[in-house]
């Protein structure tokens, strides 16, 4: 296939050098710019979701705070730490690839994958918890639980801001009833708090009220928007994580075969860039989704 003008001449090509490049430096520069361009477009991809989050959080901050408080910040924080550790092990993988240390490379790739898998495991636990508490925003996708005759989600007559504290959990004496797997949210106490203290946004003043009264159903709908964004954003992130694990599998195989050394380690570095990017997205998702309403919980209310 080669039609270099004088193709009979022997031209030394370094192993791993592709034919369109004249030397390894050009190949490395190209691959690096290429990967960064890919990350630029990934940033814009997630950016659309952050825009939607920004719009709705600024419209309905109380609903977002309420929804966020029911996310378990412990699991979220743990996941953040897990990902940071995996970033460290990834960076060390690149370091050892550069040094040509095959065994340590392989060990650190395995550790990175382990932490990545842990992240996904914790996510599965969280999603399962939402499933069990009627917090999946899509109707029909929550645990369906028919109650015994007469059992009710909440006692009749109680307004939505006097329901069982700050969580959507029904009080202990009530059974979880959700025959159609609907999205369940009954507690609008944060809206009442904001109303009493006078810091509802204009959108909230319209959006939470019917006939001048705080309407639990309308508030629930806004919380539903929060959970929709939560699932889409963390779901897309988890998808990227899965792709990252597949990438790591390939990297593990090639590193095990000893392909990478001081002269040729770009694939490891590029995979590292992707992995760190996924970590950075989570660094923003964690405070924006899990921590935004905590100060309401602890400020003596």
């Amino acid at each position: 296939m080669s039609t270099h003008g004088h193709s009979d001449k022997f031209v030394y090509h370094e192993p791993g050098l592709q034919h369109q490049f004249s030397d390894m430096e050009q190949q490395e520069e190209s691959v690096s710019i290429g990967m960064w361009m890919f990350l630029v477009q990934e940033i814009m991809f997630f950016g659309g979701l952050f825009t939607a989050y920004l719009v709705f959080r600024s419209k309905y901050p109380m609903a977002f705070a309420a929804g966020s408080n029911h996310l378990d910040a412990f699991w979220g924080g743990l996941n953040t730490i897990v990902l940071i550790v995996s970033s460290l092990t990834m960076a060390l993988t690149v370091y050892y690839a550069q040094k040509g240390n095959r065994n340590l490379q392989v060990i650190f790739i395995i550790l990175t994958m382990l932490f990545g898998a842990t992240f996904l495991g914790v996510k599965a636990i969280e999603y399962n918890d939402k499933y069990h508490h009627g917090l999946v925003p899509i109707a029909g996708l929550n645990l369906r639980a028919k109650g015994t005759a007469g059992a009710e989600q909440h006692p009749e007559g109680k307004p939505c801001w006097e329901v069982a504290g700050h969580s959507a959990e029904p009080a202990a004496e009530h059974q979880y009833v959700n025959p159609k797997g609907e999205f369940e949210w009954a507690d609008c106490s944060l809206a009442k708090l904001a109303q009493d203290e006078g810091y509802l946004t204009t959108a909230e003043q319209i959006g939470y009220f019917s006939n001048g009264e705080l309407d639990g159903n309308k508030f629930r709908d806004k919380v539903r928007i929060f959970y929709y964004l939560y699932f889409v954003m963390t779901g897309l992130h988890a998808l990227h994580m899965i792709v990252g694990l597949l990438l790591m599998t390939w990297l593990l195989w090639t590193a095990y075969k000893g392909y990478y050394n001081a002269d040729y380690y770009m694939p490891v570095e590029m995979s590292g860039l992707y992995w760190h990017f996924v970590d950075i997205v989570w660094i923003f998702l964690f405070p924006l989704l899990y921590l935004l309403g905590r100060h309401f919980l602890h400020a003596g209310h």
Partner: protein
Amino acid sequence: MAEHHHENDHEHIAIPGYLGVFAVLIVGTILTYFVATIDLDWIFPGANTLVALLIAFTKMACVMLFFMHVRWSPRLIWLAVAASFFWLAIMFAYVMQDYLTRSTGVFTQ
């Protein structure tokens, strides 16, 4: 014969350096977790969010500069990173300028 073309980009940062960055990231995470529980809204509304975002930006900068080696990367890469944030800012700002100036606005009571 293999040439070493990496004279200037070997070992940007050694193991202690990576561990130091790691420590900063962990501290940042713990910090953001606990600051979130303290009500800072008496300073100005949204202070909690601002602090959380500042911590997040610091963590991101650490990951980008040191783990992703941007600190030692050519200026084109710096430009690409800066451009992506600038474009995100365009998207956020110009979308929000609509929502903030509607009569059913966000910050008007």
